């Protein structure tokens, strides 16, 4: 299907209206996403006030180097997806596809690195309910910290996974000329979603890896 013959569904008058509706729909969806993560962040905040030392201790057990690399990878991927939208707007199909593939690849790299982190934590006995072997005064508070750590990072990784799949579809469609300068709304919305995934991580990274670490 070529972009020029893209049919407008019957409920819309014209492509402009359709594009407005799709974009607003995505923003509304992103608002719900913020609230999903908001619950976890609120829970984190309260528990951290209750167990400040244990949270600092838990933070010291995380892998700051990997976490930092993951952050860099995700930020780079966000830049790549923005470039892919720009390329499509300029008519660069090849470059746009390459940028999308790069974004997806960085997303996968992020997931793999996180997998290594989880494995290291498993060996260290830091996974509540599965293998938790911590002892000492902070053990209980750290268990809560790691509960939240897993809720937040797994939920975020779920979003990364969905994003990678979406990016794959978009790359495939871009390559097969589904989009052009006039019509590329799905690509733009995927990019919006990917930016949200990125922004959420920008909050997760300091909360999990940095906060209280030096104290």
């Amino acid at each position, binding site marked *: 299907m070529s972009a020029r013959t893209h049919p407008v569904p019957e409920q819309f008058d014209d492509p402009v*209206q359709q594009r407005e*509706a799709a974009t*607003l729909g995505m923003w509304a969806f992103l608002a719900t996403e913020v*609230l999903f993560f908001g619950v976890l962040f609120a829970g984190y905040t*309260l528990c951290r006030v209750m167990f400040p030392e244990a949270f600092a201790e838990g933070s010291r057990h995380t892998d700051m180097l990997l976490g930092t690399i993951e952050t860099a990878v995700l930020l780079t991927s966000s830049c790549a997806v923005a470039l892919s939208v720009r390329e499509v707007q300029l008519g660069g199909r090849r470059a746009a596809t390459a940028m999308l593939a790069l974004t997806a690849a960085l997303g996968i790299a992020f997931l793999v690195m996180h997998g290594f982190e989880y494995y290291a934590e498993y060996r260290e006995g830091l996974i509540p309910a599965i293998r938790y072997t911590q002892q000492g005064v902070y053990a209980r508070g750290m*268990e809560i910290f790691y509960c939240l750590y897993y809720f937040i990072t797994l939920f975020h990784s779920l979003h990364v996974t969905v994003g990678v799949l979406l990016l794959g579809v978009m790359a495939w469609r871009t390559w097969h000329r589904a989009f052009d300068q006039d019509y590329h709304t799905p690509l733009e919305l995927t990019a919006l979603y990917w930016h949200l995934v990125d922004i959420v991580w920008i909050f997760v990274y300091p909360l999990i890896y940095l906060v209280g670490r030096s104290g």
Partner: protein
Amino acid sequence: MSTVERVPPPRSYLEEGYGLRSWLTTHDHKRIAILYALGITFFFFLGGLAAALVRLELVTPAGDLMSAETYNKAFTFHGVVMVWFFLIPSIPATLGNFLLPLMIGARDVAFPRLNLFSWYLYVGGGVFTLLCLLLGGVDTGWTFYTPFSTLFSTSHVLLAVVGVFIVGFSSIFTGLNFIVTIHTLRAPGMTWFRLPLFVWSMYAVALVMVLATPVLAMTLSLIALERLFGVGIFDPALGGDPVLFQHFFWFYSHPAVYIMILPAMGVVSELITAGARRRIFGYRFMVYAIIGIAVVGFLVWGHHMFVAGQSMYASIVFSILSFIIAVPSAIKVFNWTATLYRGDIGFDAPMLYALGFVGLFMLGGLTGLFLAATALDVNLTDTYFVVAHFHYIMVGGAVMAYLGGIHFWWPKITGRMYSEAWARFAAILMFFGFNLTFFPQYILGYEGMPRRYHEYLPQFQVWNVLSSAGATILGAAYLLPLFYLAWSLRHGARAGPNPWDARGLEWQTASPPPPHNFEQTPTVTEGPYAYR
């Protein structure tokens, strides 16, 4: 489908197709509304059955009909079903789905496939809830309070939580669809301040659905994980905080009350203006009141937790905000009353429901102020006073408005008129049955009878018997419309496009409307309610 003789184009949305498949794969908002109506009617009577069991047990002071555990399961099932499978989707998903595009002059909602998907999510959530019932039910109360729900309850909490989680997404997607539809698909000339108040109420309710429901979904997920893995942030044994659960839960569930009542207010505004042949009094104030309720509704959740151990200062703030939210609600009641003033009031069935709504909502709202006062609430918390209060809002308010709306738009939806005499009779019976059921509960609560027990002290029996007797009348009144409305589908007189001589855009097209609502997109030149 090929066996049906097709005369293109179909004259009405009902003639688009007759097979089951044409209904289950439809993208037409009007057909999806009817799918929802079937679902919520089923759950309404199922939830009603559970309420009947509760009322039957409470006829005598002793717990003789069922065990305490079964009783707990009965009221939990009643609550879960009525809140998530009836009240929340009731007006938005049926009347809202059907009327919203018609009222703004659109051909459909912005995302018709998502709309159908919402219905399937609703059904999916319903399946889990029914499964939970069939396997033995859940006994936590509809609020799923921790740590009982996570550590102690041996009933099927997980199934119920999954059911509610899924149905939550149904309401998120409906809300999202409505927001985008109202923003982008208004007909030429349909400016924001020409929108009917029903549309405004749908807009407000959609915002609340989209912004509150994710919090519920996440909180329920945390409960599920805590139950499955035995670790989590609500578990006091681990150092977690069960009151945090209550904060999260009511952050959704108090705005959810406004998900139930805002649409009812929208319906009643349409019913009263058409029934009294009057412009709405203070249109802009009504709009600001709707938005005000939706916004402040997010900031009052703590009034459910005055005795839960939250900080005294938090309680004071929540108390004041709860008083403040009564102001826009009162504005609405005043404006409905002022609309009636010097009106040419007809007492057709929809108007009877609307007038019933105003009275019952006022009583429910005023008793809400009792409960917003921290000192008084300490005495009244978890008594029948609370039960009576929220039933006045939800049953006396939301259900009355829902049924009023169903009657008012029935000729538009089906193209037929129902029996007016039966409809008036049912409306009046319902009003009396309702008050007989729930007014005694105010007295019971005031005298100290706690809720959620299957036994009670003998001195409470008189009021309980009255309440149960009222419930019988109420049940009969709810069953009546099933019969005369079904009867009207085949035998009712044909309704013209505009049997009430009402002014909304939905009345300018045929009854039932054609598949794409209007022969040509209407152009709007004046505000709503162009009566005198």
